[in-house]
């Protein structure tokens, strides 16, 4: 189906099913129960899952296939966000023109930065991309304030021109981004017994965009171009002496992944029309590296998993406070309750960074292939009961 082989089709359908059912899957606990804290099925977080999924998928096309580690990819996300918000301000609150401009702009920036940075490889390339991104962050935060909004971020105002839409929404407020009359924040709720599920238009729009991006990524992975990119990672010298010019290949990969980042940035701005300079800071670039590695470098689905895992921690773990902890352990005798709370407290709420750091270390130490390898190991554990145990360690192939 869709020009994919059976395995890839299955993977695509699986991801499609997961995203379509996410409002159910992410809200496994009934409202009001102690575990409801762990529910992630609310629009903002679900949107973030798929948007950062797009970002990571794109990053993986560069890093996973060619091995070029860009440490400045968040810059393109920022460019996309700024471009999208400007489009909202000047032209229309319809997200399509914003997305188009964002992808084009980030593509142009990626072309320029990639052209220069790809003259070097290895850590020198990483530092060049980092330098460009840090320059963009620093300028956006300070001297470019008239264009970027600086510290407060670029935001919509009541007196923006919005040439196509006219100025103000009916209720006297700034209109919100939408798609031909549907607003991104529109939601429908379903109450099933004690469970409540929210279906948000913005989420499903982003999810659709992510599925398309994922599909394109699969096609790229399976194409001759993708094979060339993997060949660059495997042995650039041999590729040169095989009559292939590696520079345009890496540049194309860089631009494509930059455009993915721009697309993610545009979607972020579409869900929440504000673009802040912090999303270009080096820690944001580092985050996408972590997402990709955490999920599994060079695998198709890994980056999506990694993005989900990190965003989940950032948004769920960080919100647990000592009050909630006490309510969890309330059934225990007082002394034990306090002890448990004291033990757990450093790792949650304001300590979520600590948990994040520990998880990175554990994953890198024990699961070099990321979460995907973890999944494979579990799968093998089940299989090995049927087949022989001495199966050779499988190579991590794209598409697993």
């Amino acid at each position, binding site marked *: 189906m869709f*020009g*994919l*082989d059976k395995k890839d089709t299955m993977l695509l359908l699986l991801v499609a099913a997961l995203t379509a059912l996410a409002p159910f899957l992410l809200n496994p606990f009934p409202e009001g129960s102690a575990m409801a804290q762990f529910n992630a099925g609310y629009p903002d977080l679900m949107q973030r899952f798929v948007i950062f999924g797009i970002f990571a998928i794109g990053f993986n096309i560069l890093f996973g296939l060619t091995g070029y580690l860009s440490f400045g990819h968040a810059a393109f996300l920022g460019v996309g966000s700024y471009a999208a918000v400007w489009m909202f301000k000047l032209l229309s609150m319809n997200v399509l023109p914003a997305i188009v401009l964002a992808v084009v702009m980030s593509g142009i920036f990626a072309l320029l930065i990639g052209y220069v940075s790809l003259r070097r490889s290895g850590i020198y390339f990483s530092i060049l991309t980092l330098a460009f991104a840090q320059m963009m962050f620093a300028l956006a935060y300070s001297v470019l304030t008239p264009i970027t909004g600086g510290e407060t971020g670029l935001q919509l105002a009541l007196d923006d021109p919005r040439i196509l839409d006219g100025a103000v929404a009916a209720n006297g407020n700034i209109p919100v981004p939408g798609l031909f009359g549907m607003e991104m924040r529109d939601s429908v709720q379903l109450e099933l017994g004690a469970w409540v599920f929210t279906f948000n238009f913005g989420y499903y729009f982003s999810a659709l965009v992510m599925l398309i991006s994922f599909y394109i990524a699969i*096609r*790229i992975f*399976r*194409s*001759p*171009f*993708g*094979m*060339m990119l*993997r*060949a660059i*990672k*495997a*042995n650039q*010298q*041999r*590729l*040169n*002496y*095989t*009559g*292939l*010019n*590696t520079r*345009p*290949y890496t540049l*194309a990969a860089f631009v*494509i992944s930059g455009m993915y980042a721009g697309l993610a940035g545009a979607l972020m701005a579409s869900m929440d029309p504000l673009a802040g300079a912090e999303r270009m800071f080096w820690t944001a670039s580092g985050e996408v590296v972590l997402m990709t590695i955490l999920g599994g470098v060079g695998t198709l689905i890994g980056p999506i998993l990694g993005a989900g895992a990190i965003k989940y921690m950032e948004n769920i773990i960080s919100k647990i406070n000592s009050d909630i902890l006490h309510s969890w352990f309330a059934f225990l005798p007082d002394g034990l309750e306090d002890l448990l709370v004291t033990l757990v407290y450093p790792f949650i709420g304001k300590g979520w960074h600590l948990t994040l750091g520990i998880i990175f270390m554990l994953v890198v130490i024990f699961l070099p292939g990321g979460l995907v390898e973890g999944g494979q190991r579990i799968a093998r554990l089940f299989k090995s009961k049927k087949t022989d145990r001495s199966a050779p360690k499988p*190579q991590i192939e794209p598409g697993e």
Partner: protein
Amino acid sequence: MRILEVKDVNKRFGGLKALSEVNLSVEENTVHAIIGPNGAGKSTLLNCLVGKLIPDTGSVMFHGQSVLGRAPHEINQMGISRVFQTPEIFGDLTVMENMMIPCFAKRDGAFELNAISSVSSQKDIIERAEHVLEDMKMIDKRHMVASAMSRGDKRRLEIGMCLSQEPRLLLLDEPTAGMARADTNNTIDLLKEIKSKRDITIVIIEHDMHVVFSLAERITVLAQGTPLVEDTPENIKGHPKVREAYLGESSGH
């Protein structure tokens, strides 16, 4: 007809004179060996031919066209393929994929943004790659990850990758270095077979005199960056200057 013409090539690395006044011409459809003691400048010369190094002075003509100043991939597209001393293959890729890449390079040129069609739909490339693998007797290993193969198989794959491009000139840099005697003999047989099956010019740099004398039709002896003598294998064997400069030291072979 002369396929390769090297004229008055000089190359210095700082104070070290690596090549001095090198002249070399290779006839089409011959096997030409370049021998010489360590540090004689053999590898430097080879690197000048494939675009890795640029000579300070002199010219290198391939089929009447200068290769100087061209990037390695351009020189390859002109018809020169190179086999490295340690096999350079795409270790993370499967044998089949390894073989398909030169086929793509042959068909599509140095760059082609073929990002949407799938590899498995490239029937002509698959056919061609399988054909070469069969030729190289490696078809049964096609799904293996290349880095998992033995050194001999890697060498075989690398040669196959070069041949799949149907180069007019094949450069071999010590193809049997570090190989066991049996592997060496296999490689000699392979090269002989290749030569017998098609029109191809081979330039081989080799330490192993057994290999050289089994294959070469012409031999150039390089010493201290300059060609000592060029002649047929028979004449080289008896040449006093060569014995003095080279063979005398390595007669232990």
